[in-house]
Structure formats: C-alpha cells, structure tokens
C-alpha cells in the first residue's frame, strides 16, 4: 500500500513535469512576448511595493510596523503565493475547461487529472513574483536586527513551505468550487491575491474580526503573520497563545485535507456533457 502510494505520488509529479515542460517549449515560441511578460510580471508585482515606499514617504510606521518589517511581510507573503501560483496556479482555468467540454480529454488521459490541470499553461514568467518577493525578503532581513534563536531560524523555512502549501490549497479548493459553479474563477482571487495583499500589511491595520477570520476561518494568518510575530518579536493584536506562532505546518496539513476532500467531491460530482 505504502509503495503504491509512493508510486502514485511519483507518477503525479512526473505527469506535472511532462505537461509543464511541454508548455514551456510552446510558450518559448514567442520569445519577445515571453521576455516582456517576465519583466512586466516582476514590475507588476513590484508596484505594490512601490506603493508601500510612497506611503512611507509620508509616515514612519504603518499600524506600528516599520518599512523593513513590512518588507518582511511583503516578501514572505509574495514568496508563498508566488511559489503556489507557479506550481498549481493554472488550476483556476478549470471552469473554462468545463464550459468548453475539454475537461473530458484530461480525464481520459492515463495521468492524474489534478497534476495535469495544475501544469496546464505553465509558464516560467510566473517566476517573477517569487524572485521579486525573495529579493525583498533578503533586503528586509539585511535591514532588520532580528535576534536569531534556533526556533526563529527554524521558523523561516517552515513558514515559507507551510505558506506555499496553504496558498496551493486555496487555489485547489477554490478551483473545486468551479465544478459546481463554473463561472466562479474570480471568487478565488479574493482569497489568493486578496489574501496575499492583506498579508503584506501588519495585522494591526485590520479589524480584529477580520484577523480572527484568518486564524480560525481561512487560515491565511499562518502563512506569515503568526510566525512573523515571533521572528520580529511583535505583540499579537489578538493575544493568542504563543503555540499559534509555531502552528503553520499543522494549519497547512489541515488545508491539504480540506482541499483534497473538496477536489474529490468536485470530481465525483462532475458529469461531462458528452459533446
């Protein structure tokens, strides 16, 4: 059983890889467009930060956080969203495939549907966001005087991995909704891009109910807010127990279970039109 599970996982990863490689070759046929789009992607993502820079020309702190501290949030949020988008972001086109009737083609191929759909229209230009966010994270760490302890050092990679998984689950969970509601593509933007925008700002900026919703509802606070409170030694506006600041992997695991259940339920509910 364990062996077949490993074999299935390996086959999923390989399927993803094959489809992604095919799309990379295809998109490289338009080189000028690709280069422009990679640059534009980096520039688009940098815009949010330029706005932050312009805001900080008028003030020294926002919600009690300094610019390098905000850059830390910006970098970790962008890194998690960017990596998740690179790996599974294409899944949001599911509704279009259902409408066009092309989902059936995916389902009859001898490869996992989820892996194929995640790699569909894969493009390296999506590297723009994680690259830019990673660079800003590095800048913020160079400017911040973090008191590094073993737990803080461990929290860094844990936060990025768990954050990527959480956003990937939001992508997949959101796409699963499209099995029933095929026009809902934009709905998930609220939680992926909207969520990432929210996480770029300190939790102190938002209403307490909203922050509580990201802890106990859709667990976006575990992507960076909660671990960042520990790493940067900031007070928690909700006053939660310190254990929450280390709980990102647990939140990510729960997200995986929820997203898997949603995807399976959606796939089971799907009926092709047969056209």
């Amino acid at each position, binding site marked *: 059983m364990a062996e077949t599970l490993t074999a299935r996982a390996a086959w999923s990863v390989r399927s993803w890889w094959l489809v992604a490689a095919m799309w990379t070759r295809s998109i490289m046929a338009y080189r000028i467009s690709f280069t422009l789009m990679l640059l534009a992607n980096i520039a688009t993502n940098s815009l949010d930060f330029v706005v932050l820079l312009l805001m900080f020309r008028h003030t020294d702190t926002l919600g009690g956080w300094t610019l390098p501290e905000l850059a830390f949030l910006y970098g970790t949020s962008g890194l998690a969203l960017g990596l998740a988008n690179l790996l599974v972001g294409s899944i949001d086109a599911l509704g279009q495939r259902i409408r066009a009737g092309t989902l059936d083609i995916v389902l009859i191929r001898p490869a996992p549907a989820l892996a194929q759909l995640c790699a569909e229209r894969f493009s390296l230009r999506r590297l723009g966001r994680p690259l830019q966010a990673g660079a800003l994270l590095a800048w913020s760490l160079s400017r911040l005087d973090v008191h590094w302890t073993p737990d803080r050092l461990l929290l860094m990679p844990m936060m990025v991995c768990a954050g990527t998984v959480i956003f990937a689950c939001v992508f997949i969970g959101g796409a699963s909704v499209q099995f029933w509601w095929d026009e809902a*593509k934009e709905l998930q933007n609220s939680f992926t891009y909207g969520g990432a925008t929210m996480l770029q700002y300190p939790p102190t900026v938002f209403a307490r109910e909203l922050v509580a919703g990201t802890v106990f509802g859709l667990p976006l606070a575990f992507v960076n807010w909660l671990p960042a409170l520990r790493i940067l030694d900031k007070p928690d506006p909700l006053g939660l127990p310190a254990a929450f600041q280390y709980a990102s992997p647990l939140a990510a695991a729960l997200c995986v279970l929820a997203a898997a259940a949603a995807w399976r339920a959606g796939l089971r509910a799907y009926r092709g039109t047969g056209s």
Partner: protein
Amino acid sequence: MTLTAQLGAVRGGTARLYLAVARGAFRRYATYRAATLAGAFTNTVFGCILAYTFLALWHARPGLGGYDTRQAVTYIWISQALLVTVAVWGGGFQDDVQDRFRTGDIAVDLYRPVDFQGWWLATDLGRAGFHLLARGAVPTLAGMVLFDTRLPADPAVWAAFLVSVLLAVVVSFGLRFLVSLTGFWLHDSEGVRAVMLVVSMFFSGMLLPLALFPGQLGRIAAELPWAALISVPTDVLLERRTGTALLTGLAFQAAWAAVLLAAGRGVQLLATRKVVVQGG
C-alpha cells in the same frame, strides 16, 4: 429621395448599427451573472483590505494629499468600482481581438462593411455600461455599509461623474486599441499588454492617489492619459474638482480621447496596408 435624405438615412443606420453592437455587448456580459457576482465580490474584498490600509495611513497623517479620512476611504471604493468599468487592467474587447489575431479571423473583421475601430469602440462602451452598473454598484454599496464614506448628494455632481466615466472609458479604449494593434506586427500583443498594465495601474491612481506621488513625478503623472482613467473621475465624485477645475478635468479627458482615437485610426491605416492573410 433627395441626396441629403439618403445621407441622413445612412447616418441614422450607422448610429443604429453601433447602438445595436453596444447593446449586444452589454447583453453578452450580462449573460454571465455568476461571474459578475464573483467579480463584484472580489472588488469588495479588495476594497475592504485597501480601505483598512488607507485608514492606517490617514490615521498616521490626517489630511494627507488634501483628502480627509472619509474621502480617502471613499477613494478606494470608487476606484474599485471603476477598475473593471474603465478596464485599467486591460481586457474587454482586447481579449476578443487577441483571439482573432491567433485564429486569423482578424482578416474577416477588416473587410466587414463596418469601421474596425468604431465596431470595437461600440462593443467596449456596451461592456463598460454593464460593468458600471454591476461591478460598480456592488462595491460602492458595500463600501457605504461597511465604512464611513462620503458620496455627494448633489445630482449634478453625479451627472458630471457619469460624463467623466464615459470619457475615461473612451481614453482607456484608445490606449487598449493601440496595444491591440501591435498584434499586426508582433502577432502576439500579450507582452505589450502586460507592460501597459503596469503603467496603467500605477499612473491611473488606482493604487495610490496621484496627489501622494512625490513632486515632479506627481506633476507628470497628472498630465499623462492614464490620469483620465481613475484620478479625474474620482476627484469629480469627491467634489475635489468643481467649477472651472471640473471643466478643465473633463476637457483634459476629452483631449486625450481625441488624440488617442486619432492615433489609433492612423496606426490602423498603416496596419491594414501591411496585413497578409495566410491560408484559406
């Protein structure tokens, strides 16, 4: 029938045709109710998030840029209401034209007995009309309920705002039309479009009011065509532009609309001269 009457009938027919095209586009977008609802919800979520960030900034610096706190929050909600209507992101007819470049159907568009630019402008105005109603009203109402906003009571201000939005859509069309036409040379205008998105989001005032831009940058941004998309209409609705300032604002938009439409016409002439239709 006299010649003038005939000409009049032809003109009336053209107007009717464009009206029918616009109405068709309106209905086409109105068909996707669930997508519209999902989109309006997304605008509302972003409105909430950004309104909180503005509240934090104006809490630190009350009266920044000449906006009081209520105006600053209202600015966010109006810009969210206009985002899709004036297509700051691009899109609308651009998606259709892009597809038609890829399939080669663009050749069919060029020998239709209807003006290419006029046809797409009509579809875009129809689309914008629908988006203003659907994706404009929902975030505006949500913003009024959730936050302390400031909308004008004077119907004349609303009327001026509608004129300003109409001009904003035409300027936006002018810009997007030029981007789409690069497809005649590059075959794929996606890259140019992506670059345009960056410029447009930034210089329209979508992300931050142009009044908060530093010195020279702010002065230059206020003269660029993108200022006509978000900055001018929001200032009209927030009653920051009244009297002469209102008229110069509308004139600024109208001037850019005229320049961009003329430029689009010129490029279209160049493009159609070089177009080569492949295959049959």
